[in-house]
């Protein structure tokens, strides 16, 4: 009975976090801020939903589910790094918004126009 309550709470929190992330994905102005909304709350939400599911299935499947969650936690930063560099390289970043632009200093040809 307790595991049902705990997994329900975990899954509800995870779904709520996914919803807030998607809301942020729509509302935020620039792509770089949308990247924040696309990776962090979604990864947290997915991890919570997977944890809630892991409580309800047998141990072997639960281990695989948590492995998928760990994989998602590892790949989310990689994705946002790749997309962020693509945005920077294709000129999507407005220079006046940035305080310091380390990527431009290292690679002068990438200077945002």
């Amino acid at each position, binding site marked *: 009975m307790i595991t*049902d309550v705990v*997994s*329900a709470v975990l*899954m*509800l929190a*995870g*779904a*709520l976090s*996914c*919803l807030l*992330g*998607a*809301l942020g*994905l*729509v509302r935020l102005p620039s*792509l770089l801020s*949308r*990247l924040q909304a*696309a990776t962090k709350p*979604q*990864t947290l*939400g*997915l991890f919570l*939903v*997977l944890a*809630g*599911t892991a409580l*309800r*299935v*047998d141990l*072997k*499947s*639960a281990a*695989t*589910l948590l*492995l*998928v969650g760990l*994989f*998602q936690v590892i*790949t989310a930063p*990689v*994705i946002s790094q*790749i*997309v962020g*560099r*693509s*945005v920077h*390289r*294709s*000129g*999507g970043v407005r220079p006046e918004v940035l305080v310091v632009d380390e990527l431009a200093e290292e690679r002068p040809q990438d200077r945002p126009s």
Partner: protein
Amino acid sequence: MTVVFVIVLVMLVGAGLLTLVRLLRGPETLDRIVALDVFVILIVAGASVYVAFFQDGSNIPLIAAVALVGFVGSATASRLAERRRRHR
């Protein structure tokens, strides 16, 4: 208990609709790539709600495969979007 699953699925569908808005409205291809990546995460979450509801781990390899393919897909797509954009 089923009420919980219905609420979770309704929330995930709502998140999917919001991501669809970003997918359709996104000014650049990179917005669409980010939106598709969020779709992958929502699909994985929905599949795990299915696993939780029926309490059988038979389609967990599906969840793992979708998560892997989603990551590789959006990584290569964003590299492509960047290269195509620079030549214009």
